[in-house]
């Protein structure tokens, strides 16, 4: 990938421009990359979807934006230009425990996680936890903080917020816990919300409620969302742009209409074929992608998807370039340069 900075929408100014982002872990003094030279842009009021299997580097990308990469990992290269008013900040250049990033973290860029039970502190009430964020970033007093916490819960549709504010996490259902976590994330009106698999642990009915909630909150506040999920159904509902990640790289990106109707990369095609469909008529076999995501540090030569790919041919032993395959649609696959006879049927 030479220039991995991708422009999804022309005209608008992105809130965040990431380019050449690389995240490495030092294992036995050997750097092992888990995110490899990726780039994307996130626009105000829009949702960028990051799709891929577990272990593809999706969550690591989200954490890198907040400079929360766990040790012994670090942001090894790249820029993450965050625009605020007239000024720009390169998040990659900030001290990961410094004043500046701590002001941004939770205040301007917030994150929600897959498992609210482990992300919430079990010994504090919901109100105390939402209040902590508010006090930290808005410097409000006790009474005002509590009122704001109640208001935040009401906004995310928690019934009876005046009493629920004093509940402990274990007293809430999975759906309500997720709402409480969203309330906490939104309590300081962030400009970017990083949502890491926010619906994966939930029932389909509650999942639909949370997706609706995120969409209506986005409409109301104009915040940008980076939606991380492996669920292509949820993604279809939310994303304005989609980037497909595999083995630490973005292998395809573009508008959802193109990604779903004409996926170019065999990995994207494989993901789509794996999804069981409600409307399927024959109860036959699904078409899974064989094998598993390679371990970081044990990447195959050339295209990382090659060992699992049904279309692999000679050129795939070299890393494929990112090519434009349509309007705003790019894919990173040698088939894009191969003769038509070798092209995968879509």
């Amino acid at each position, binding site marked *: 990938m030479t220039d991995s900075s991708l422009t999804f929408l022309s005209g608008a100014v992105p809130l965040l421009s990431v380019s050449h982002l690389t995240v490495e872990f030092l294992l036995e003094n050997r750097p092992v990359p888990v995110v490899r030279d990726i780039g994307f842009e996130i626009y105000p009021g829009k949702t960028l979807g990051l799709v891929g299997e577990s272990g593809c580097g999706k969550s690591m990308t989200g954490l890198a934006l907040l400079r929360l990469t766990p040790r012994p990992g670090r942001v090894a290269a790249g820029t993450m230009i965050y625009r605020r008013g007239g000024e720009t900040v390169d998040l990659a250049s900030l001290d990961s425990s410094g004043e500046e990033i701590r002001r941004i973290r939770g205040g301007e860029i917030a994150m929600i996680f897959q498992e609210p039970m482990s992300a919430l502190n079990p010994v504090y009430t919901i109100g105390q936890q939402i209040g902590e964020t508010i006090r930290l970033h808005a410097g409000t007093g006790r009474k005002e903080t509590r009122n704001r916490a109640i208001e935040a819960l009401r906004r995310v549709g928690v019934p009876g917020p005046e009493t629920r504010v004093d509940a402990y996490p274990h007293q809430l259902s999975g759906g309500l816990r997720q709402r409480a976590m969203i309330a906490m994330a939104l309590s300081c009106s962030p400009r970017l919300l990083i949502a890491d698999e926010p619906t994966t642990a939930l029932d*389909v*009915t509650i999942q639909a409620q949370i997706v609706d909630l995120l969409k209506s909150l986005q409409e109301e506040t104009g915040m940008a969302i980076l939606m991380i999920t492996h669920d292509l159904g949820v993604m279809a509902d939310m994303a304005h742009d989609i980037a497909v990640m595999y083995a630490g790289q973005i292998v395809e990106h573009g508008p959802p209409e193109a990604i779903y109707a004409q996926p170019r990369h065999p990995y994207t095609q494989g993901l789509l074929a794996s*999804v069981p469909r409600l409307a399927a008529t024959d*109860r036959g076999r699904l078409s899974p992608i064989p094998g598993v995501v390679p371990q970081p540090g044990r990447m195959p030569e050339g295209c990382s998807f090659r060992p699992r790919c049904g279309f692999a041919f000679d050129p795939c032993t070299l890393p494929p370039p990112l090519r434009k395959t349509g309007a705003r649609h790019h894919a990173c696959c040698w088939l894009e340069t191969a003769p038509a006879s070798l092209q995968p049927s879509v």
Partner: protein
Amino acid sequence: MLLAGNGPRLFATIGVTSMSALLSVRALIKHFPVRRSLWRRIAGQVRAVDGISFDVERGETLGLVGESGCGKTTAGRCIVRLLRPSSGNILFGDVDLVTLTETQLKPFRRRIQMIFQDPQSSLNPRMTVGDVVGEPLRIHRLATGGELEDRVAALLGAVGLQPGDMRRYPHAFSGGQRQRIGIARALSLDPELIVADEPVSALDVSVQAQILNLLAELREQRHFSCIFIAHNLSVVKHVSRRVAVMYAGRIVESGPVESLYARPRHPYTEALLSAVPVPDPLIQKRRERIRLQGDTPDPAELPPGCAFHPRCVYAADVCRRETPVLREMELGVEAACHLTDTLDLKGVKSD
């Protein structure tokens, strides 16, 4: 077939009682006491499973669907007798498993096995994969030494793992591989019935598809019957021939997959179908959807009348007063809804 005298129409059965049924569950109830106060007095009952009946025929897969807390897992655990039912009958062949003592149960434990949702917590981290998969064979004294090892190796092969994996520990495997280990263990005694409790919901889509295909393959080879418990209707459609939808401890609708998906008879089924996201932005963004508000009711304090009425968009007065019973709508299709005859519920059109 012996049907205990529990007022036969109070708990309607699913479908026609068939002579080839491997398992017949009748009026199964599991209540958990809620104890409060210093003296641990029983203060109430959590009605986790509240009178369900169904049959599983030989070689058939029955899908048991519903949200978390609807009692589907409790029902599954009663059937494998990890839990002792409060009342009801679980007829396996001619024997009622509910009445058996632990010792009497032992031969039946071989014939009914369970696959769990979370392959992380259901495998003992201190046992090698060989021990995990071979343990049932050892407990039932079916194989020892070299023969045990051979059978474990064959089982691992059947689920797509390597015989060499026998000496490794569960933590060295991915989620999908761990689920394969759980399946190999369940298969080790060549059971006639497998209760699979959300076996794929913790997995990535691609791995989920691998496991679903594996289960289908194994079923064809080994002809076991299966109760497939899940909350995702699109997954259930791929594996089952018949589906029973549970809500608040009861079955609210049941029928063959095709008719239940195309023409749901209970508003809850309609809402569940509507909630499954379609992986196509053009359809998904245009689709008219029913949004269920709120959560499933607390099974210790069920609402009066139809337990679904607080979340039902069609609810009328009668729904708040009277509890609906399962009625046969057409051959093999049953629903428990007062209004079902007047509603034209939306299903899913097949491709």
